[in-house]
């Protein structure tokens, strides 16, 4: 089942309207609608909030978990431990160092959870190029984190 359907079911089961869910999450009703119709997936932070709200596991809401977290696991330098705020600040600093092109592709993948084919279609580019950019950017992120915190 797609994430949107799962969210709609959980919301209905909890007896909430889209407006009520939006209010609880401090987002717009339109955004909740986009989630439920799979037009735009919720980011990971929202997934964690909804998992807590609906008392379900994150894996119930996030069907691409294993792929994306596996990809990003390669970005973490060995032995590095950071707080979430520290890491968020570092990631934004890293994004600032990237070109607009690489940054946009990376965000579409790891914020909006789009796959390579979707990103390629949105930007009118080759799927292989998207994968190459993502791979290079992950390596750059690892190098950046290593340089910043070691």
């Amino acid at each position: 089942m797609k994430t949107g359907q799962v969210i709609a079911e959980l919301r209905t089961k909890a007896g909430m309207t889209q407006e009520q869910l939006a209010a609880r999450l401090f987002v717009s009703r339109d955004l909740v609608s986009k989630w439920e119709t799979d037009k735009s997936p919720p980011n990971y932070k929202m997934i964690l909030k909804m998992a807590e709200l609906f008392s379900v596991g994150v894996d119930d809401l996030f069907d691409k978990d294993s792929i994306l977290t596996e990809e990003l696991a390669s970005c973490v330098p060995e032995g590095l431990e950071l707080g979430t705020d520290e890491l968020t600040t570092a990631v934004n600093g890293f994004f600032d160092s990237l070109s607009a092109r690489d940054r946009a592709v990376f965000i579409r993948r790891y914020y909006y959870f789009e796959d390579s084919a979707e990103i390629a279609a949105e930007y009118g580019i080759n799927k292989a190029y998207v994968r190459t950019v993502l791979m290079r950017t992950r390596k750059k992120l690892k190098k950046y984190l290593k340089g910043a915190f070691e």
Partner: protein
Amino acid sequence: MNGRYVLYAISGTDEQFLLESQQFTAIGKSIRDDINNKRRISFCVVAVAVICAAVFGIVKRLPRSFVIAPTEMTDSQTRFLSESSQTEGTMEMVSSDATIGGDARTTVSDAPDVGSAAQTQTTAASLSSAVTVPDSQSETPIDETTGEPDPHVIEPPSPSDPVSTAPFVDASTEPTTVDDDPVEDPGGSAGAVFTSVVVSYSEARDKFAHPIVPCSKGDFLGYKIGIVSKNGDIDSSGSFCLSVTYIFERGSIGLQDQDRLTGSSASTTGEECSYRGRVFYVQPSGSFGDQNVRVGYYPSWDAGIAYEAYFDGDVDVNEIMDLIISVEI
């Protein structure tokens, strides 16, 4: 620390980067241009290498009687090298012609838009609400018959200049509009609409009375009248504005991009009115101590475009709603 932590950190990405990633047309074009440039360079390098290999291959096979003595061989080698350089030059010229053709098409088609090329070049963030003026002091072509600057030739705008989408206006005079006084913002704040005004980012916040969300250079460069739809699709090549007001004889309709403004305009104040499949909010004349009627229309509530009309109190409300529908994106 594992991938989930990184994923969580990425979910805290600054909004300016998120907005930038939605500029599909501009980003896509930039990527494709980069790929094409790299392909051209690779093609030239490979072509030169093949030609050099072919030339030196032929030289090696020449009979000994044709081979010149060492000192003269140097001259001969120099000649061959010169020829291959000329050939290289020719190859570059051929590829440049192709590039020029491609760029010209791109330039012509993007001349009114500017946005995508300008996004990576301009260093100052400046905002023009409506009309901006091409630099009239720049060098102009010479009329061949008179020897005088040709007044009829208009140079294409350079990528760093804001581009006008209206007839030429002399920058030295005060801009004139139908109504010289700033039109009141349909949302209630004064000074929401100006024409022929160039303001800096910090001035824009005071002048337009909007808490504008900080955004990247790419958002304001090549500013032209255009609206980003509620789904983030770009109407022009990477350019968009935050709000636009259509001025009519007896009122105005303001469109605001709520996705880019902090806070929203959506409000249920007024009477709810269903009309032509849409829900409008009508505040009749006298609601604000004046004789004007206000009509709000929020298709996606506090996201996407907000439409707010502000008309003389005796204008037919149905006519106002028809006008809103006519400008609906």
